[in-house]
């Protein structure tokens, strides 16, 4: 473990990724100090506005990164958007990994018809183009949640809200958060398949190893073999994929927000902020700041996770050890 950490820290690729991630983490943690929310603010994630003028304003002393259309402060949005990006990226990654690991490992361990059924389900989900499927499911979910009926979907939303926003599951979900959760649920629904396929392949290899056969021979339970012996030896590639996918999930959510399906208007989310630039594409030379800063934040955030994932793969892959990374 220490060796892996040392390798990661001495590798220039991973080091740059880690530095970027740490910088984002610091910005997220210090958001209330860097961009303090207004006193009367109910939700610090709602970007404060300085008037209602349509045309964006350039950088000034009051708004160091300028304002978008509708006078939303860009610095505030970018800073608080970091928290949104971490929340969304990490929670989606955890949920998709858990689903993928469960489906893949059960299929691989028990094999037979169960494996066939689980893998066919996985293939059905894989057959859909990811972003298109996420867009469709988000709109369907927004229609369902708009009706406000309690049901299994509302239960899922409450669980996800508890994990993502720390909200109380016995209370109604905030409508602003609910809109974000619909996008997250859609990405989770169509984002777990890679994990399932990868872990299935790895478990099929390690389940034939001697330690696994020995454990089975002495009568160790299935769950224990799976959790204690097989998963720990098969999970490393999934960590690499998870790290690389975190950036992709944030990107996918930004795409949903850009299309008006993710975060609500005025919420501190990078994709939603770029959405403000849609009406100003012909005059972007003049209003360059409305797209540059949130865009840069997305690019660097995704790049950071990709660099860390790339380095993790190189460090954890035995065939790459000893090579210059």
């Amino acid at each position, binding site marked *: 473990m220490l060796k892996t950490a040392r390798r990661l820290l001495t590798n220039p690729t991973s080091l740059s990724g880690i530095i970027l991630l740490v910088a984002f983490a610091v910005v997220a943690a210090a958001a209330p100090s860097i961009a303090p929310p*207004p006193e*009367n*603010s*109910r*939700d610090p994630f*709602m970007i404060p506005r300085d*008037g*209602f*003028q*349509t045309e964006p304003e350039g950088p000034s002393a009051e708004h160091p990164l300028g304002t978008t*259309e*509708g006078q939303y402060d860009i610095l505030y949005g970018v800073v608080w958007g970091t928290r949104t990006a971490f929340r969304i990226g990490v929670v989606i990654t955890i949920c998709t990994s858990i689903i993928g690991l469960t489906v893949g490992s059960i299929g691989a361990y028990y094999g037979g018809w169960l494996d066939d059924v689980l893998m066919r389900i996985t293939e059905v989900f894989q057959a859909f183009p990811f972003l298109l499927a996420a867009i469709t*499911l988000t*709109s*369907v*979910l*927004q*229609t*369902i*949640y*708009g*009706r*406000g*009926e*309690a*049901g*299994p*979907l509302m*239960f*899922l939303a409450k669980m996800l809200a508890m994990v993502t926003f720390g909200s109380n599951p016995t209370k109604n979900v905030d*409508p*602003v958060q609910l809109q974000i959760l619909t996008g997250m649920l859609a990405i989770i629904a169509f984002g777990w398949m890679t994990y399932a396929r990868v872990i299935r392949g790895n478990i099929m290899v390690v389940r034939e190893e001697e330690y696994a056969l020995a454990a089975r021979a002495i009568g160790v339970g299935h*769950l224990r073999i799976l959790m204690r012996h097989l998963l720990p030896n098969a999970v490393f590639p999934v960590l690499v994929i998870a790290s690389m996918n975190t950036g992709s999930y944030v990107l996918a959510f930004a795409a949903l927000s850009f299309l008006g399906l993710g975060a*609500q*208007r*005025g*919420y501190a989310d990078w994709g939603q902020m770029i959405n403000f630039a849609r009406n100003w594409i012909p005059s972007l030379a003049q209003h360059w700041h409305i797209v540059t800063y949130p865009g840069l934040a997305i690019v660097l955030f995704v790049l950071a996770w990709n660099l860390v994932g790339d380095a993790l793969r190189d460090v954890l892959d035995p065939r790459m050890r000893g090579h210059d990374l």
Partner: protein
Amino acid sequence: MRTGQARKGAGILLIVIGLCLLTVISVYLLKDISIWILGRRNEAQVVAAWAEEVSGEGSTPYFRYFVRYQFATPHGETVTGISAVAAQEWAGLGMGGPVNAVYQEQANVPQYGVGGIDSGHRVTVVYFPLYPAHNRLDDTRLVPVLACAYVPLLLLGWAVLAGGRHLIRQT
């Protein structure tokens, strides 16, 4: 000995949680299945449609949309129901006027239009014939997504039960 008792206690707790979860899910499932399988479709008339602001002071306004509808069963019973609808659906129902909370920034002041109330509009509803008060706006097109949502919850309930049983058996 103490570990064994703790395991047994945890096992019983998990089984109780699992049973509660499965009971709640089953109740919802029964309510949904009664509509999905035995439900009868009918045309209802919108008697009122309105929007309510649910956001607090100082935050971006957020609206919820409601319709009150009325329909008659083949037995002559008149049933009234209220349903919330999503903003997109509000548009789809043809309520007329500005569909969503419209932002009129040109005036440099926020103004929010909530759409014209269009009483008399007809919507499709689905109801349980034995108990027409159990009705809702037709959700046939949403059934696949609604039904899929039960799968993870049923699996979760089953896993909690299995975990509890496993702990008890270990003692």
